[in-house]
């Protein structure tokens, strides 16, 4: 049986007035069945774009330039839009950041949950609504609230509704894009707990996207770190957090204060996130890297396996090679 999701060299561009935004360049990662993979990075590093691209939902000015997304061995990139629609929500579903904005404000939540069931399983309305009620109870909301509107729920409850909706068609993969950002720490714990429980019970694979490393540390088995649209490092959570290899990962891990650790001021990564329209030459992180040397400014390090399941893109590790030259993309002005 092939890997559930295998993303290779995914590259996405946006066309804007200011120029071409290289939102994601050469992102690669795997997600196994029933596994939780964390995708971490600061704002603008291409996490959400990657998530949208997995479901082929990029906005009209974005496009996948190259790379493959193979889901159960089938490459989704060339799949025509019509067939893609049948895959969406049935095979993989997504939970967005702002649950308030992700629910249609003028439609009852029951109908919104039942909608994909009716669409994909061609179920009768009654059966679909019954299942919607079951789903609500699964996430800890009384089924009496099927007929409520989104604005009648609190923030945490809305996120639960979103999760119930994501499970409507028994998908194999759930992408959760910042599912707990903007929620209070207690609600955050409740939601993460719920996601973990559901994952265990339903044997779901999950991609958890967050800017907050500590959230991922608690919940994921694998973590991929992105920076300026590129994958910097990936590996098992325990290894990656206890022994980060890439200088960016080291900086990021050090930037989070640890309530259970010593009372040390976290460390800063000097400088700012680079522009995605004209990214720095060579390794994108070199302007902010304290270990940067001559080669970093000229050549781009390839994502190379350092040990089993552990990959990083940094010339500090001798086995890392340069990125093979790619066909020059024609950039329009």
């Amino acid at each position: 049986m092939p890997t559930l999701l295998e993303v290779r060299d995914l590259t996405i561009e946006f066309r804007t007035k200011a120029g071409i935004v290289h939102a994601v360049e050469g992102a690669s990662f795997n997600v196994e069945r029933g596994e939780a993979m964390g995708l971490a990075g600061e704002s603008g590093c291409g996490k959400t774009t990657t998530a949208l691209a997995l479901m082929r939902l990029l906005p009209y000015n974005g496009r996948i330039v190259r790379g493959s997304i193979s889901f159960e061995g089938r490459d989704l990139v060339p799949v025509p839009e019509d067939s893609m629609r049948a895959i969406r929500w049935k095979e993989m579903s997504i939970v967005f950041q702002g649950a308030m904005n992700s629910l249609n404000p003028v439609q009852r939540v029951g109908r919104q949950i039942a909608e994909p069931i009716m669409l994909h399983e061609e179920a009768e309305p009654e059966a679909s609504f019954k299942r919607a009620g079951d789903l609500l109870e699964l996430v800890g909301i009384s089924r009496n609230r099927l007929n409520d509107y989104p604005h009648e729920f609190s923030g945490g409850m809305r996120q639960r509704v979103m999760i119930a909706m994501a499970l409507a068609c028994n998908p194999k993969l759930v992408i959760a894009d910042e599912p707990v950002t903007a929620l209070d720490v207690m609600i955050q714990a409740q939601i993460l707990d719920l996601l973990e429980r559901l994952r265990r019970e339903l044997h779901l694979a999950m991609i958890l996207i967050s800017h907050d490393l500590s959230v991922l540390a608690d919940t994921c088995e694998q973590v991929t770190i992105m920076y300026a649209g590129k994958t910097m490092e990936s590996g098992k959570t325990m290894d990656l957090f206890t022994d980060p290899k890439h200088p960016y990962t080291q900086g990021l891990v050090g930037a989070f204060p640890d309530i259970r650790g010593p009372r040390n001021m976290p460390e800063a990564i000097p400088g700012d996130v680079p522009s995605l329209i004209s990214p720095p030459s060579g390794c994108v992180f070199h302007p902010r890297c304290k270990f940067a040397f001559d080669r970093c400014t000229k050549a781009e390090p390839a994502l190379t396996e350092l040990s089993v399941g552990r990959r990083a893109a940094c010339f500090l590790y001798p086995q890392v090679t340069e990125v093979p030259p790619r066909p020059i993309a024609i950039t329009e002005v």
Partner: protein
Amino acid sequence: MGTVDVVKVPGAISPFRARATVVSRRMQDIGLQVFHNKTAMAGLIILLFFTFLAVAAPLIAPYSPLTAVPDVGPLTLPGGVHPFGTNQFGYDIYSQVIWGTQISLLVGVLAAGVASVIGTAVGLISGFVGGWIDEVIMRFNDVVLSIPWLVLMIVVAARLNYLDLAGIILVIGLTGWSVTARVVRSQVLSLKERMFVERGRMIGSSNAHILLRHIFPNAFPLIFANTILTVAISILSESVLAFLNLSVKSNVSWGRIIAEAYQHDALTIGMAAWIIVPGLCIVFLVFGFYLFGYALDEILNPRLRRR
């Protein structure tokens, strides 16, 4: 994030200099954006053309608009030196159309100015002060808004009885401010909730300071774009009033030319241009203002600037 020229800074910076630097940089920025915006440029070209017609009317127009042409009689069919013919008094219609640009443009711009000034003042005060003052002003404003504008205008025009140019400008301006007031107020209400206004309070600014320094500059783009659209509406209003014989009697405007043509059945006597040409002028001038206004709104109002 554009690249910033390193500004040579002297030791002491006067507040005036600081403001001037800011304003000039903003104007340059906007000018550049207008220049690169096709819609805005199209609108601007139309507007420049009509402005030229209005300013240069004495030079371009072959005849005076309100004196009979010596060589031919009234209601001459188009042709020769009178491309659109002459009207019932024997005035040259071609010259009338050119001179009419002046009145239409003047009435449009000034009336919109009146409407914008009143509307902006009312909207700013109403939105910023809030409370019962806002309530009273907005109720009154709603009332003005909900009355059919044409009827209101006719009543005011009829009530004023004597309508010279100033009169018609006042009538259109006084009936047209309520939309501006409403737009400005809602903008002020949303600006008032912004954090930088709270910062203004935090540092101890007075209300007047906050209104002038924080609210107005941020509402200005919207007010400006709205004024441009109001000019278009004012031009239309003037033409309707003129058509109903309620506008200036001593000057020629496009609406009045159409009204005269209509009264003399220009279409049946083969003088279609008498009606069509001034109408097209109105349409294009208004079109120009709308294009420019819409494009400006897009440029100045970052809410619409989505990728």
